[in-house]
C-alpha cells in the first residue's frame, strides 16, 4: 500500500522533470547549441564560452609578448636617456628657464609617439600643449605648433589645424641619435619664426612614473632683451664672449645649440616614457585578460556541469518512467 502510494508520488514528481521531447537515442549527435535551443535558452552554450576563452587567451599571450618587447626596448634606451641628462644642465644654469616669459611668437614643440597602445602619455602631452597655447594667446601674442609623432598630430589636427606649422613623423625608424635630432632642430629653426620655443614632452622618472615637462628655449634677441632688463639673465653681460665676431652671432649659435641639446634629451626621455607606459598598459591588459579568463572558466564549468546534470536527470527520469 505504502509502496503504491510512494510510486504514485514518484510519478507526480517525475512528470514535470520529463522533457516534452521523447528520449532520443541519437541525442549525442545533436550539438549542444541546438540542444539548448530545443529546450529554450536556459544558459550560455559551452561552445560559445569556449570560443570566447580561446580569443581571450590569445589576447593575453599577445599583450604579454608586447610587454616583454617594450621592456627590452626600454632597457636599451634608458641608459642613453640617462647619459644625455647632463646635456641641458649647463644651459639652464647659465640662461635659466623662464616659462613665464612674455613674447610675441611662441612655438610649441609637442613630442609624442608614433605607435599607440602606450597609455595616456600622448593625451597628456596634447593637453599640456593646448593649455600652453591658451596661456600664450592674446591680443598681440600668438602660438604655433610643431608636432613630432603621429599620435599628437592626429589629436591636434582635429581642432588646431591652422596653427600647425610643421609635422614630423617616423622618428624612431632608426635608433635615435644626435645627428638626426640636430637635423630636425635645424629644420625647425629655419622654417619657423619664433621668439620662444616651448618643448613639451614626458620626462622619464621611473618605469611607472612619467612627468609631463616643458622646457623653454629663447631666441637670441629675446635673450639679449632679458639680459638688458636684468633679472635672471642680467648676469649674462658679465660673461666675456670669446670667439665669433659679434656677441649676437655667438648668442645665436648658443641658442641653436641649446635647442638641439634640449630636443635630444626630450626625444630620448619621451621614447623611454613611451616604452614604460606601453609596458604598464600591456601588463594591466594581460592581468585583465587573466581575470576575464578565470571568470569565463567558472562560467564554462557551471554550464558544462549543468548540461551534464540535465542529461542525467533526463536519462534517470526516463529510466524510472520505463520501470515504474
Amino acid at each position: 500500500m505504502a509502496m503504491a502510494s510512494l510510486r504514485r508520488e514518484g510519478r507526480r514528481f517525475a512528470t514535470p522533470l520529463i522533457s516534452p521531447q521523447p528520449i532520443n537515442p541519437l541525442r549525442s549527435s545533436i550539438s549542444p547549441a541546438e540542444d539548448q535551443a530545443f529546450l529554450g535558452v536556459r544558459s550560455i552554450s559551452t561552445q560559445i564560452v569556449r570560443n570566447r576563452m580561446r580569443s581571450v587567451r590569445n589576447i593575453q599571450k599577445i599583450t604579454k609578448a608586447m610587454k616583454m618587447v617594450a621592456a627590452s626596448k626600454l632597457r636599451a634606451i634608458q641608459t642613453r636617456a640617462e647619459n644625455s641628462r647632463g646635456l641641458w644642465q649647463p644651459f639652464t644654469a647659465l640662461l635659466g628657464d623662464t616659462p613665464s616669459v612674455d613674447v610675441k611668437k611662441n612655438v610649441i614643440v609637442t613630442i609624442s609617439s608614433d605607435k599607440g597602445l602606450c597609455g595616456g602619455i600622448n593625451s597628456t602631452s596634447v593637453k599640456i600643449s593646448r593649455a600652453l597655447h591658451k596661456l600664450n594667446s592674446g591680443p598681440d601674442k600668438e602660438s604655433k605648433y610643431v608636432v613630432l609623432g603621429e599620435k599628437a598630430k592626429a589629436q591636434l589636427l582635429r581642432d588646431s589645424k591652422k596653427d600647425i606649422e610643421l609635422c614630423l613623423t617616423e622618428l624612431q625608424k632608426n635608433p635615435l641619435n644626435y645627428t638626426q635630432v640636430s637635423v630636425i632642430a635645424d629644420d625647425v629653426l629655419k622654417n619657423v619664426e619664433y621668439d620662444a620655443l616651448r618643448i613639451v614632452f614626458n620626462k622619464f622618472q621611473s618605469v611607472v612614473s612619467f612627468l609631463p615637462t616643458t622646457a623653454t628655449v629663447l631666441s637670441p634677441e629675446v635673450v639679449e632683451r632679458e639680459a638688458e632688463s636684468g633679472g635672471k639673465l642680467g648676469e649674462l653681460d658679465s660673461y666675456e664672449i670669446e670667439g665669433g665676431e659679434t656677441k649676437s652671432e655667438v648668442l645665436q649659435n648658443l641658442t641653436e645649440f641649446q635647442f638641439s641639446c634640449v630636443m635630444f634629451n626630450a626625444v630620448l626621455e619621451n621614447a623611454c616614457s613611451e616604452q614604460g607606459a606601453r609596458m604598464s598598459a600591456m601588463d594591466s591588459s594581460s592581468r585583465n585578460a587573466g581575470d576575464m579568463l578565470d571568470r569565463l572558466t567558472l562560467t564554462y564549468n557551471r554550464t558544462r556541469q549543468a548540461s551534464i546534470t540535465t542529461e542525467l536527470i533526463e536519462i534517470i527520469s526516463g529510466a524510472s518512467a520505463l520501470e515504474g
Partner: protein
Amino acid sequence: MIMIRRATTGLLSRSTVIGAYHRHFSSTEVPAADELFMMAWKRIMPNLDPPKTPLAFMRPRPSSIASKLTVNLVSPYSEMSNKEVDMVIVPATTGQMGILPGHTASISELKPGVLSIHDGNDVKKYFVSSGFAFIHSNSVADIMAAEAVPIEQVDPASVQKQFTEFTQKLSSASTDLEKAEAQIRVDVLVALNSALSG
C-alpha cells in the same frame, strides 16, 4: 591605478616646486619665473597639473672651491660631471685657451680640436668636435661638445684616408654648399691629424 599615479604626480609637483626654491644656479637668485608660470597656469587650467620645468630637475651646482677647477664635460652620449682638476685647455675658435681656477666668467665657442684636462701630472686628452664652454665666476667650467672622444679611440689610418679623400673633394667641389661641407670636413680632419701627432 591612474588615480594613484595622478595623486603621486600632484604630490611630486608640489614638493619639487618647494625644492626648486632652494636650488641655485650660477647666481644666488631664487627662480621666481616658476611662480609666475604656476599662477598663470592655475588661472587658466585649474584642473590640470602644471608641467614640470627643467629647473625642477637641476642637479645641485658645485659651490666654489678656489683652489681647484670643477669641470663638467658633457656630450649627447656621455657626461663627466664635477671633476676637480687643476687646469683645462680648450680649443676655442680664438685658439687654445687655458682655464685655471679663478678664471673670469666667459662663454666661448669651440672649434674641432683637442681638449686636455690636467690633474696634477695626469693629462687626459679628448677630441672635441665643436661646442661651447662656459666658465663661471665660481671656478666651475661647463664644456658642452657635440662629440667628445678620448684620443686613444681615434684610428690614425682612417683619419689619413678620409683626409686625402676630402681634400680632393674640396678642390673638385662645385656649389657653395658642397664647398662649405667639404671645408668643414677638412678642418675637422686637420685638427684630428694634429691631435694625433701633437
